């Protein structure tokens, strides 16, 4: 069975206060990066997954996000890349 590198980004939902992101945005402003309007800090999860196809690996990752990897109340996820490993 082929294996795929699945890359998942989980970020706090826009509009919800993200104190970590706010602290980072404030720090960037104090360093002179005034162009930054907003920062949100999330997680980057990299999985090594067996699947018969890239689409299959992506579908598995979506199910994992919905069940465990992301909180549907507060977070959004994006399955960023699927490539054969």
């Amino acid at each position, binding site marked *: 069975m082929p294996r795929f590198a699945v890359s998942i980004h989980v970020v*706090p939902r826009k509009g*919800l*206060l*993200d*104190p*970590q992101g706010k*602290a980072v945005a404030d720090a960037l402003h104090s360093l002179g990066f005034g162009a930054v309007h907003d920062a949100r800090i999330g*997680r980057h999860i990299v999985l090594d997954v067996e699947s018969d196809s890239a689409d299959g690996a992506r579908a598995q990752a979506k199910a994992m996000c919905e069940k*465990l*990897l992301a*909180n549907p*109340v*507060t977070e959004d996820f994006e399955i960023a890349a699927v490539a054969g490993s």
Partner: protein
Amino acid sequence: MSLTFGIVTFPGSNCDVDAYHAVVDALGERAVTLWHADHDLQGADVIILPGGFSYGDALRAGAIARFSPIMREVVAHAERGAPVVGFCNGFQVLCEAHLLPGALMRNAESRFICDWVHLRVEGTNAPMFLSGYATGQVLRIPIAHGEGRFVADDETLDRLEAEGRVAFRYCDATGAVTPASNVNGASRAIAGITNAAGNVLGMMPHPERAVEPLLGSVDGLPLFQSLLARTGA
């Protein structure tokens, strides 16, 4: 007829002994300790999910504990209408397990807060846990959390309020809910909620640490006594 409390210990729980002390020494009832890998509630009438850092808060607080073997039995217990209560990390586990709506996010000011707070008793749908209090009563109870900011969408918050499911709100010593008294920035200053049936309670504060004068407050004890009164034990 006495009541048996089942206190769940997940790897990383650290308030299970406090809960045991509250039940056995302060309340005078029986408690059994339940390991997260168990499949048996050992005949417990009331389940307590204690505070702590289950599974080191890996991924999100409560996210992994929710899938512990014992949680299948805890969910079944709740679905039978039997009492389940989560304090602090236990509240986070109950939300992750979808026994309660919403989620707990990092405190608005980022800091871990370990302090005494005031709570206003509000819930009207859960006499099982709250009959020992008067509605509007102000309690002094400690908190100790970094991720205790209750968050839910407006529709859920409206429903919780309309159904009398907001059990406690953060307030000041006079019972007024102000921006300053909402210590962690929770939506609508919510400190604890119940499920629709009124048999599942989750709260960030620690009533189990306020059960005798030596601890600085006895305001947590009526919560446990309410359970006794309800079951006629």
